[in-house]
């Protein structure tokens, strides 16, 4: 790539993970990265962007425009503009699926249901309230309680023969409920499937799903079985974009391209 070619960066600083994407003028992804956000969002955004640029074989000097999004969107030094993660997830998803869609995004600390019409305009959105139920934080807490690495949950849930249902809204109460199930001798894989089921139920309580469903977010990216379970629960196929954890960053990069002349 030579310096005269335009590239655009999108940086999504989430509460749990920071994501960066570099796209070229043809909207092709040429670099991407995901790192832990930690406590210094500005440092995390710089480091994540550097990793994405490394993958693209570029330096920051090549970036024509950058847009930030996510919880730490105002802590991104290179970004001239920012947009909320709702707009960026919507834009990123519509890039892959250009028709009316209902997006379920399950992130580290919040969930969203975003509805787009056939032209990509947002019709509505809902975020979870202050509660962590149904988010990645819920699964993280449960993996700690069960002493099972987070990355093993998906495989365990797939092995379940008889799901254990959990009733509580509350993460803390759910943890107590899980301990009670263990005490009762329930199978761990059945409990983990119950946790996945609980996540999906909490999300689906937020809004109706009116169009073709797309799932995104870090929790979706690392737990394929969650998508399969959702599809079974809603009795229709669920679409997943190429990099489900990076759709916010991709949307931000696409906005950066659109805004570069403004």
């Amino acid at each position, binding site marked *: 790539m030579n310096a005269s070619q335009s590239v655009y960066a999108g940086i999504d600083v989430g509460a749990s993970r920071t994501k960066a994407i570099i796209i070229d003028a043809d909207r092709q992804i040429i670099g991407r990265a995901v790192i832990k956000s930690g406590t210094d969002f500005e440092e995390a955004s710089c480091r994540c962007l550097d990793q994405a640029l490394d993958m693209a074989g570029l330096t920051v000097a090549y970036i024509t425009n950058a847009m930030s999004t996510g919880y730490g969107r*105002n*802590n*991104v030094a290179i*970004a001239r503009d920012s947009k909320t*993660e*709702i*707009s960026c997830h919507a834009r990123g998803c519509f890039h892959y699926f250009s028709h009316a869609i209902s997006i379920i995004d399950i992130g580290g600390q919040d969930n969203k249901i975003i509805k787009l019409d056939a032209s990509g*305009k947002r019709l509505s959105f809902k*975020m979870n*309230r202050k509660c962590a139920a149904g988010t990645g934080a819920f699964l993280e807490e449960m993996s700690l309680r069960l002493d099972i690495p987070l990355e093993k949950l998906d495989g365990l849930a797939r092995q379940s023969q008889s799901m254990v249902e959990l009733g509580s809204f509350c993460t803390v109460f759910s943890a107590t409920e899980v301990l009670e199930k263990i005490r009762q001798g329930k199978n761990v894989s059945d409990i983990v499937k119950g946790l996945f089921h609980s996540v999906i139920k909490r999300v689906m309580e937020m809004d109706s799903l009116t169009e073709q469903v797309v799932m995104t977010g870090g929790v979706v990216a690392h737990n394929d079985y969650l998508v399969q379970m959702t599809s079974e629960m809603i009795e229709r196929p669920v679409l997943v974009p190429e990099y489900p954890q990076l759709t916010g960053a991709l949307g931000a990069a696409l906005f950066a391209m659109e805004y570069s002349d403004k």
Partner: protein
Amino acid sequence: MAEEKKVARKKIEATVQMNRYMSDYFYELNEADKSRSRKIAWCTSVGPAEILRAMGFLIHFPENHGAMLGATRMATDMIPVANASGYSPEICSYLTADVGAYMKGITPLSRAYPGIDRVPRPDVLVYNTNQCRDVQDWFAWYAAEFKVPLLGIHTHRGVKDVGDDHVASIASQMKALIPPLEAISGNKFDIDKLNHVLALSKECSGLWKKVLDTASAKPSPLTFFDGTIHMGPAVVLRGTQTAVDYYKQLLAELETRIHDRVAAVEPERFRLYWDGMPMWGRLRDHSELFSRAGVNVLASTYCNSWIFSAFDPEDPFNSMARAYTELFIVRADDAKEDYIRRMIEFFKVDGIIYHDAKTCPNNSNCRYGMPQRLEALTGIPSLTINGDLNDLRLVSDEQTKTNVEAFIEQLEER
């Protein structure tokens, strides 16, 4: 870096005068409390204040005090005190903040008005359940504490159309207050005094409506956040010449703004309607959150609650009964929907913000599908934000900010 710019809403000059009037009001109450020179009644904010004033009482409004606790961000430290004495964190946080503050011997009046060290002690407490049942329990706590009489009006709830039966019931309850109030005040009830007070209340109410209606101008000279501050005299001084004088002054200033096309929020890119309680401890933050995006939240159900169009000095009891029952909060959902639909049209708004206040179900109109029904009917989008009037433990600022900014981005896409 994407920086947040600060844009303050334009300052209203009349505020100086309002602060003077409010100061006089609180010091007069304080003086009466200390000297016991006048009888003091505590009254709910949309209660039968006119009757009390006509009978010579000075009036303290606990809801006003509750809002002050919220606005000064003192409430969140007071609420747990009431919680620990058996008043749930799920109930009205005006009640819990106010009772908690009393138990701790603290009042925001001391901060604002040097020399005032407590709320004025009541000789009688008079409530009206037209807003909620919590006021009854709230006032009952103080009646037991001060060992003074507790009187009440029990209003019908969920009223679709206010009929003659409703009016007759409330009017008779109001009349029943007179004998005990005569005994407590030592004053004989005088219908001419009531008519005079009611005439002043009607004038105040009419002027307050005109003030709020100025927000229908484009650009609006007023914001909802201004309204929450300037409603003070309509709450605590209605029925006095002072309130009438104040709203004449405020109205003149706002009409001049309209004439000169002065916007309260510049530029006014979008116009929003607020339904539900303010988050008192976040008034400034919310005002800045919207104004820096060029959005004016310019009208509300809440501020409109002190408009009493039905007042008629020729027929005081029936007209007060009607006015205090026609309030939005008393009504059935279909009447409320019709009201908000008319407000959307009148104020020419682009969207609605519903505040789902955790401890105030009666002022949270988004819990039974109303936003969805109204959006289907009008095409006007809405956003629900979760929070509370006083309890900041129930407020997530980052969630609110992201939701509001995302909603504004949605409006930009339309």
